[in-house]
């Protein structure tokens, strides 16, 4: 994946940052939730989903928000080396 920085100064960078995702990582909601539960990180799923996204179930989010939330959960697994 490539992306460009755009921050509070309003400028974008030409620097390209590449992220490598482990092949086993699943980003479908059910699969990712199973991975999170297996890693004993389920509390963080609930906290972020309910407090930031204000829903109880990820399926209640519009597709764009759902992707954003799943990305955060993917980062959560990575951050704990799980």
């Amino acid at each position, binding site marked *: *994946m490539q*992306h460009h*920085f755009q921050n509070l100064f309003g400028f974008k960078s030409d620097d390209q940052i590449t992220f490598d995702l482990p092949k086993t990582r699943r980003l479908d909601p059910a699969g990712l939730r199973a991975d999170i539960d297996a890693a004993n990180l389920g509390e963080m799923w609930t906290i972020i989903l309910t407090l*930031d996204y204000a829903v109880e179930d990820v399926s209640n989010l519009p597709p764009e928000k759902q992707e954003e939330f799943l990305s955060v959960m993917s*980062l*959560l697994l990575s951050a*704990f*080396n799980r």
Partner: protein
Amino acid sequence: MLTRPASQFTELGTKVIEQGLADPRLSEFYEAIQSASHQASPGTLKPYINHLSLCSDKVSELAPPPIFYVGRDSSQRLLFGDKWASPEATGGSATGLRTPDPELEKASANAYKAALNLKPYYGYARTHISLEGETYEIAFERLIVGIKPAPAATYQICAYYGVIQDLQRRS
């Protein structure tokens, strides 16, 4: 003559917060976490979640723990931008998020270590950061606390509450 080092990271200590000298919203967050004995319920975090960056408890000598959540109004999102804070779902980082400035990363590790030992870190920093090939001088206060997300949780998260006080382009 005023001596002004190029970079300054100073731990002020949480007494400064208790004396009412810190940012009011940051101080409220500190009090809420202290009252909850570092075991934060959703109710404790709710008023502040948008201002926080959250990271894991995997700290090392050279780097703070990787970040997994950057609140919508957090100082790190303001500074580094939405694209940095929200990598696309199809390509999330394999190692969690890191701030784009390696020097800043190195200088922060000890603060996170303290926070994970239930010693909240409150400090002031003024330093140069590199962003997009430009150098900026930034001044900010920051509170870092370790939190157990549930009583039975076997891990902690670190919550970072930063307040940018000044930002100037230097080159």
